């Protein structure tokens, strides 16, 4: 048992804090009455995930998580909701009677699958750090080890941009 007021003990407290934030955010995201509050919960959850990344020694990933998920994805969702939905609290429609049990079943299956994956994988020892997380290493690995995924992602983004342009072009007069 490590004492609480040591570096390891405080690190554990910080980790638990992040986990708590993630769970809290997830609960808010799924139980909120309005969409905007749900997105706020999602943002909280993602910030927690960024915290865990930082805790596990990948500051680059943590900051990218903040920049992209909390800063861009959540903003895009809120933006879409604000433009599409008139303000005010909406009553939820009654769900299909099978929806509740179905959700529980799907959730259990998913949790079981993830847990099985987590326990079966042989995790590397915590001490082995792949690289320092510095800019140099990130760039190098992106251009060598992960170059295929990198290129694939850029392709997907290109397709998304062109798709948006095509959709945006339709229904617009010459102006």
């Amino acid at each position, binding site marked *: 048992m490590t004492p609480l*007021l*040591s*570096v390891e003990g*405080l690190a554990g407290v910080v980790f638990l804090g992040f986990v708590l934030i993630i769970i809290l955010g997830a609960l808010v995201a799924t139980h909120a009455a*309005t969409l*905007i*509050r749900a997105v*706020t919960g999602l*943002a909280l959850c993602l*910030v927690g995930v960024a915290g865990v990344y930082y805790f596990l020694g990948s*500051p*680059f990933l943590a*900051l*990218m998580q*903040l*920049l992209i998920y*909390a*800063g*861009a994805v*959540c*903003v895009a969702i*809120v*933006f879409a909701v*604000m*433009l599409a939905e008139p*303000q005010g609290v909406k009553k939820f429609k009654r769900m299909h009677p099978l929806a509740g049990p179905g959700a529980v079943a799907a959730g259990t299956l998913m949790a079981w699958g993830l847990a099985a994956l987590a326990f079966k994988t042989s995790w590397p020892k915590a001490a082995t750090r792949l690289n*320092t*997380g*510095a*800019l140099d290493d990130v760039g190098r690995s992106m251009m060598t080890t992960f170059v295929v995924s990198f290129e694939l992602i850029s392709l997907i983004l290109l397709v998304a941009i062109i798709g948006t342009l095509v959709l945006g072009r339709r229904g617009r007069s010459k102006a």
Partner: protein
Amino acid sequence: MSGYPEIFRVLAYIVGTLAFVGLNAAFLVWLERKVAGHIQRRIGPKEVGPFGIIQSLADGIKLMSKQLVVPERADGLLYRLAPLMTMTTAIMVFVTIPFGPALVARDLNLGMLVIFAFASVNVLALLLAGWGSNNKYSVISATRAVSQNVAYEVPMLITVATMVMIVGTMNLNEIVGQQGNLLQWKIFPWNGSVMLPVAFLIFFICALAETNRAPFDLGEAESELVAGFHTEYGGMGFGLFFLGEYAYVFVGCALTSIFFLGGWQCPLGWAPGVHWLLIKTYLLVFVVMWIRWTFPRTTIYGLLNLSWKVLVPFALVNLIVTAALLKVF
């Protein structure tokens, strides 16, 4: 190694940053009113203290003594959360700003990224403020502020990527370290790429737009939107948005001076230190105010067109030319 000094460091950072953000806002509000006054051939505040310098303090006390009113139809939780969020991100961006060679809260290798990451979360705070107020002007203003922020983030980040290619690091202190005297400042075309002056212009314009400053303050166009996303806020709720805005103005100008004007380095290489960063940054802040009180507000279409049709292409050309130059030489 014991964990206690770290805790003291964190405490010192929090207290110092809070004090700095508060004093910075008080000073900038006073400066803004003075600059505005003199540009419009008035005097500006002059009653409280010599040259009215304590005016902001009086205003702050007034704001703090006001009752916090939550509008009846507002989303109370989000309404209260938004100003806190904007303050939190404003404080977090100060973590990696190198005020001096040793005066930086956390000398991270990814320091630059920290600032942009937390600044991008601030956009969410503006949106929540607009939405939480349940006021149509606030919502319109929030959507404007966000579309503007998203639009200008693109050329800004492309320019920053170009800068990273030239300096080869994201550690802000190292970037400053490379600019020992006036001739090594990154604003000059002979320090890495001929496009550097263009990069400086793009970055500064984007910083203006990102901090919602005139002529890009579409989010708070008084003539159409009452007061923008903080229309419904009174007392210190409004005060916090103001503190946040001025903190971001400072951060934007500090980043500009760190990237292009040598940060805490002296132009002649004599005595580097905090004072140089503050001098350069506040000179840039003065330019920001000068611009605000000289140029009329643009339209929202003009604003978005400027970003997507002018700044983004120039930023991309800048990126490509710089990459080619770095590869060839």
